[in-house]
């Protein structure tokens, strides 16, 4: 578990980062290092160069605007947890990030690292999918934007080119009064979720749910939008019975990536249970 022999660079501009990535086909970007360092220690990957984003200015900013919240790629979990206004501006984001790992990891792990790493059980990719976040990238042809919907291709796989740097993520402003629920089941507090479900919707004046959104993590090769659940509930008045029925729908929308069939059944059942529970949580309905 010693690191392989590699070079280390800490450029001061995005252009230099891209130039380094272009010049070294197997270079790897390192941000917080919370996923990459174990990969290197286990020698599962041996890049010739590590390109550290630590000297780039401005990537650690959290901006709260009228239309959106922008998180720089190097914003850490601890920054989200401690930000005075985010808990109001993006309550579900903060609630989900509360489940990420432990203090030591939270002090280093970053938003950009998590999105680019694309672990299907991670909270940040799940949230990005749920709210249709815009992912900002800087590449050989300069800056461009990607939709979260198109971003995740598979486990640890995204549309990012080898020469791209993820620079930030824009989250649409959270409407006042939007209701949400999030629950995940992990073996221990802070472990990767075996499954998790986040839901949100707006209350219409008719008492029905609008802009219904639901996402499952840990239950597929990428975060999975539960579009069946969304369609099933859109425009309806949420009741405990409907929440249960939505849970059953959710079970059909996920295919957990585990070899053991029994474990897959269990995780599917978790998605069903958590869908029903988060819907009730969001609607303020009695659990059970």
């Amino acid at each position, binding site marked *: 578990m010693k*690191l392989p022999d590699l070079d280390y660079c800490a450029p001061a501009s995005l252009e230099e980062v891209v130039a380094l990535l272009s010049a070294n086909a197997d270079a790897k970007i390192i941000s917080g290092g919370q996923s990459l360092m174990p990969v290197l220690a286990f020698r599962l990957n041996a890049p010739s160069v590590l390109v550290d984003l630590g000297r780039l200015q401005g990537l650690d900013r959290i901006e709260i605007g009228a239309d959106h919240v922008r998180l720089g790629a190097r914003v850490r979990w601890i920054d989200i947890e401690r930000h005075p206004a985010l808990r109001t501006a993006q309550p579900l984001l903060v609630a989900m990030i509360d489940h990420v790992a432990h203090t030591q990891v939270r002090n280093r792990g970053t938003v950009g690292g998590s999105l680019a790493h694309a672990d299907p059980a991670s909270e940040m990719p799940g949230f990005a999918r749920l709210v249709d976040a815009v992912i900002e990238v800087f590449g050989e042809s300069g800056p461009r934007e990607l939709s979260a919907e198109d971003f995740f291709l598979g486990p640890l796989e995204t549309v990012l080119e080898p020469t791209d740097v993820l620079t930030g993520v824009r989250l649409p402003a959270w409407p006042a009064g939007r209701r949400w629920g999030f629950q995940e089941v992990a073996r*221990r507090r802070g472990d990767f979720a075996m499954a998790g479900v986040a839901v949100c919707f707006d209350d219409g004046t008719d008492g029905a749910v609008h802009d219904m959104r639901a996402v499952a993590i840990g239950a597929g090769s990428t975060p999975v939008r539960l579009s069946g659940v969304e369609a099933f509930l859109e425009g309806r008045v949420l009741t405990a019975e409907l929440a249960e029925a939505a849970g059953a729908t959710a079970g059909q929308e996920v295919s957990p990536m585990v070899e053991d069939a029994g474990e897959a059944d269990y995780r599917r*059942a978790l998605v069903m249970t958590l869908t029903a529970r988060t819907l009730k949580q969001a609607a303020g309905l009695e659990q059970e």
Partner: protein
Amino acid sequence: MTIVKPVSGPVVGQPIERLEDLRLLRGEGRYVDDIHLEGMLHGAVLRSPMAHGRILSVDATEARAMPGVHAVITAADLPGHDHPDGVPTIPIRLFPNPGMDPFRQPVLAAERVRYVGEPVAFVVADSPELAEDALDLIALDIEPLPAAVTSENRGEGQPALYEGQPSNRVWGYNAKLGDVEAAFNGAPYTRRERFYVHRHTGITMETRGVLSQWDPVAGTMTSWGAAKVPFQNRKMLAQLLGLDLEKVQMIEGDAGGSFGVRGEFFPEDFLVPFCARMLNRPVKWIEDRREHLLAISHARDVHCDIEIACERDGTIRGMRVRADVNIGAYIRTSTTITPRNVSMFVPGPYRIPNFASDVAMVVSNKSPTGTYRGPGRFESDFFRERLFDLVAGDLGIDRVEFRRHNLLRSDELPHPLPSTAPDPHDSELDSGDYGHMLDLCLAKFGWDEKKRLSGKRIDGRYHGIAVGCFIEGGAAGPAENVRMVLEDDGKVSVYTGSSAVGQGVKTILTQIAADAMELPMERLQLFHGSTTYVKEGFGSFHSRSTVMAGNAALIAASELRSQILAAASELMQAPVEQLRYEAGTVCSEAGATMELTALAGRGIAYEATFRNSKHTYTNGAHAVHIAVDAETGKIEIVDYVGIEDVGRKINPLTLHGQAVGSIVQGLGGALLEHFVYDGEGQMLSGTLADYLVPLATDFPNIRSQAVELHPSPFHPLGAKGAGEGGTIPVGGMLGNALADALADFGVQPRDLPLSPARVWHMVQQGRASAGRAGEG
């Protein structure tokens, strides 16, 4: 902050804060990896990637040519010693028998590899990184063989590991008490069950490490990183290196945990010093975490077929046990203990007048096993206590009453344990009031209150409770040494053969020695665990150090006081009978006094040996209250109470820490920790993200209380070994509490661990067999 609270008068029994802690908290600990020697090289182990295979070739040519590499050794480079194929093998420390010799582990695999992680070659290089780089350059050609992964039914039908050995059952133990056949004949009630306790082990915070230095002039080998049993390992190393015993020294520094697993003699304990001598350079090897999970002794992994015969009123007539212990690929230093303990300890503190056990040691293509906190006892308690709840249910007897009825009474003690064969070590339960301990536990737990929650669904979760009784063996012989030296400055140095592996032995022994010398603790200095300190030492295992070294300290102090009086008699020119020793001062009848500093330079010292073959049996009861989410399978510990009678508390504070930590480790084993192997013998839980040890936040609700009602009758100190008792009952408690909580679903756990997925599946099965629709 004062770390050592000033205490006047005797300190034994006082909650003294650990002498060890201030230094460790300040980062001043010295672990083996903190030691750097001039010219030191670094080792790395090439481990088998395959569970079972025939080694066709190990080609290290390229690795040897790599810059920075000083040596690569394979089995072919090792001297022939005591093994037919020429490779030295690891001796068996506990209950060795010549019949086990074919199954001893070669220090490097020679012809076959038998588990993933088995050492095949050892590289020495300028840095640990280079050594690891060189591993990639060794060409290892192994012809795969099918892997044996289970010990169930004696491992029948599994591929054979050893040529010429038709069966993977390589050894076994039988124990007997009374006439079990007669007990089952005509018994009004019998029940038979099969249980399984899965493979897991103790995970030490600090991984293992060895640093060795050869002195070519003196012809001496010094090895740092020893723990637990340095004296025994010294004998093994001396023998394997062909050195006289006094030419080998083992030095114990700080050690980040043992739990029984760390400190045994592993292949690396030979490979590192062997290379240090070969290269005439200091060599260090520090185990990394991935290696640790494969290379440390594994534990548990026991299938048990258990049968009980009872009267209708619940009186137990007899019990039969047939168990298969999956010992892994080889018999190593302490592999025999788990099967021996399973053969003897299933009866626990209960009156089982007729008992017979037949325990097989079955080899498999998994990591070799050794002792881990409560070896064979955690398993035995799971089998017994699970069975008891099932039996009480069948007979319509309250589970508390069933236990109370069958617990041994005080007036039945001492009570012989079943005698195991071969190599019997007869033992008897020494003293205690087991029924009283059960009552104390029930009262502290609030059993009568909580009973109403049994099986109830509250806020979506099912509540369950359980209670059970246990014994913990301690004070393994044969002996322990303590040497005391009166220093010129009037301080007393105390040297012991016991080892400090984080259990607070320094604090405990200082307390005992301080009282025995009537001196404040500051006037004693304790040295432990290195083979330079005492002639012979036996180390720290089987909850033994407090009892064994503690009593040796009492003997040493008594002799030291005699020597002090004799020396003072000469100086004060007064007959010894007219002198008395009082709190570090010699007083004469005439009123003269002499301080210990006046005795400087007179060589006052004594090395005492305490010999004891009788074990102590700490005993008690545990109770647990859990809440189960039937939809997610998650179990929360709402309350956990452990009560134990330790005979005499030397330090209630360190004891409490041991007890709570021990319970947490038991909960880890019951709920989280699991070495999962696939059908090819590959370990799937090879990182701490997969092998889940309890975190500080997981089990906050643990209460533990120790009492000192029945001191050990076998030795002056009266203390009974403690520290493992917390772990022993936990599996049984959790299994029973889960059955209680999920009684609506007819859930009866028979296998550990109780992982959420497994709990959920049991609920599904219960629902299916009850024909019940999934309720929300």
